[in-house]
């Protein structure tokens, strides 16, 4: 079976994806535009966890915290500069820097994965508590008040670089968020095909072997962690833009659980899976929120538990397996190749 070269494959996805994203706002209602824009921001967050957990094998509770830091950093910077362009950069760099320090602390101490999970959780909770108590007027970053539990309202929207008066409305925001999510997806595919991606996946599969081969796994874990934090931060920037508001609940346990649920349901070890998971569950949450008879947590919890028990691999890998099982096995390696692809190419 001839395989399409990765470059052509990704090029096609990029073109088709971009075309759909640009065209879509003309065909769908205003509500739907807003909902999908939010989904795009969440998809970026999901991708960051899908990468760091699914490929680098680092279970991070803290992706939502990086997402939140990105959003807060963007908010504070945009309010102060009045121009969103440097604010985006800060929204990506601050979480990355934070992850660099935290990751150094964690990975260079060679803490086991369960401790990594707990420490990222603890840090998330610290951020939650800290941000929650910034209501004092003294917690000002320039002109931006952190606002404690009430959060930061009226965050300026994205604007044309250098022209704060030309800012993105909901439809433009839809396109920007969509293209950003697409770019993150393609970027991660490229990264996984490159040397770094191979090393990171090798590390997930067999950390000792990678060390014995001479790879400094501490370093590569740190790199993967920082990249994922930067991506999550970018998602946070999109989120802060989406409702022009951010508050400490992004650091809460409930919010931190969300990306984990998305990745788990969509499929660990894939990139499409987390995106799908984010779209399905975030849409489900909103629609369930409009009815009152059944508590939304009850449904989400049930779905999630059932998935862990019955579809532990998630939707995408299960579908892929189903698909390859149905194809006649001409070449004995075909099935193996396809399922491996599920685990390492996304």
């Amino acid at each position, binding site marked *: 079976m001839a395989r399409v070269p990765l470059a052509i494959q990704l090029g096609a996805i990029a073109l088709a994806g971009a075309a759909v994203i640009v065209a879509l706002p003309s065909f769908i209602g205003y509500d739907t535009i807003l909902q999908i824009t939010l989904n795009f921001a969440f998809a970026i967050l999901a991708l960051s966890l899908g990468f760091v957990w699914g490929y680098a094998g680092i279970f991070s509770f803290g992706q939502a915290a990086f997402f939140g830091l990105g959003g807060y950093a963007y908010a504070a910077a945009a309010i102060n500069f009045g121009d969103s362009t440097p604010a985006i950069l800060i929204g990506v760099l601050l979480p990355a820097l934070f992850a660099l320090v935290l990751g150094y602390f964690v990975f260079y101490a060679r803490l086991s994965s369960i401790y990594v999970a707990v420490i990222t959780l603890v840090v998330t909770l610290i951020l939650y508590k800290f941000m*929650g108590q910034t209501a004092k007027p003294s917690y000002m970053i320039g002109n931006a008040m952190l606002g404690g539990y009430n959060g930061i309202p009226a965050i300026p929207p994205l604007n044309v670089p250098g022209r704060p008066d030309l800012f993105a409305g909901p439809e433009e925001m839809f396109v920007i968020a969509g293209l950003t999510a697409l770019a993150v997806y393609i970027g991660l595919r490229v990264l996984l095909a490159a040397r770094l991606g191979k090393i990171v996946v090798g590390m997930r599969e067999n950390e000792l072997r990678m060390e014995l081969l001479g790879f400094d796994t501490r370093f590569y874990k740190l790199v993967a962690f920082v990249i994922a934090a930067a991506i999550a931060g970018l998602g946070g920037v999109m989120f802060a833009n989406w409702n022009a508001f951010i508050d400490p609940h992004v650091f809460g346990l409930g919010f931190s659980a969300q990306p984990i649920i998305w990745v788990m349901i969509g499929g660990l070890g894939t990139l499409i899976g987390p995106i799908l998971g984010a779209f399905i569950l975030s849409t489900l949450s909103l629609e369930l929120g*409009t009815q009152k008879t*059944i508590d939304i947590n009850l449904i989400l919890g049930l779905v999630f538990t059932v998935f862990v028990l019955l579809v532990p691999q998630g939707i995408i890998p299960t579908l892929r397996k189903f698909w390859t099982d149905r194809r006649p096995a001409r070449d004995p390696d075909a099935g193996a190749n396809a399922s491996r692809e599920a685990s390492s190419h996304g």
Partner: protein
Amino acid sequence: MESINRRTLLRAASGTALVLAAPAILTRRAGAADAIEIGALHDSSGSHSIYGKEMDDAVKLAVEEINAAGGVLGRQLNLNAFDTGSNMQNYAQFAQRLVSSNKASVVFGGVSSASREVIRPIFARSKTLYFYDTFYEGGVCDKNAFVMAETPAQMIGPAIKQLIKEKNVKKIYTMWADYNYGYICSTWLEKLAAENGAELVAKEFFPLDVTDFSATITKIQDAKPDLVVSGLVGGNHIGFYRQWPAAGMLGKIPLHCTVFGPWEKNLLQPQEIEGLTTSYHYYQTIDSPENKAFLDKWAAKFGADHPEIGTLAVCSYNAVNIWKQAVEKVGDLDRDKLIAALETGISFDGPGGKMTVDAKTHHAVMSTVMAEVKNGEFVIIGQNTDVPPLDTSAVCDLIADPDQSIQYQP
């Protein structure tokens, strides 16, 4: 104490069936073509539902009454009420939906200050008239928004004056929820106390998830104040009202609470809160014919066994009626004309007394009462009329400078 009975269980069971039918309910479009579309955004579920539920009910009651009496300008009102579920994300989404899909001409809602700040800019941008009806920290100054509820000056001002005088207070110990509301109220209280010859010996702030107050209860006893003022908020802070009597402090030092309505009172045993004082525009125990009539209507709609209601319900109810008067005065739904009409000082005699729109601040001048808990009831021990929102009027003048849409911080 609410008990689980067969009905509650039945409700849960029928919920399962309903969710299967949900798509049909969600896609239903109600209302006649010529109806006036209005919107409501309240947290009927989630952590803020103890406040949001009665607000939502009050708006529904007011709209039903108006419709039963023939509507406004001969048109029925079609209420698009969304449950925001105590989630800020839902506020942004539903507000956009009200503006774009439902084309609401006015929206009542927002429970927490955070939710208000999420939706206020959306309505300002889309020029959709907006009413906020929750007591809050004050300072909102927005041509498009009207606040028909208490600010700190109205909640604390007359009450603290009365307490200082009656109990000869010199030293006040204060505790606040660690957020915007707490900080602004504490500043305001400090000023008021000074004007009346008392001083604040402590201002302590508690994150909203603190449940253990024993250290503070010890500190209070060390400080030996003449009055303790609590601005604690929310389910976790209820712990204080339980630990205070448990430490044997009840009645030892007078306790005044700035956020303590029926919502909090119902969570506690009467003997835990005996003698505690509090102050709002409205309590259910106000003895007046208007209130009696209102409570009858409320009981007719929501059942005689409805939970005790508070100022939030009445402020929401008043707001709808004040808007109705403005529409009737103007004769159409044009936003700018409605704002002008509201600024003429429209006033409404609600169940809690008179409430008048203050043109300069878009807030309300209102009557307030102080209550003391006796045997689990709010017994009215003080009444004031036409209390102005002094905190906000000190900084905000929308007549002199109409192009404003901000919240002033003290």
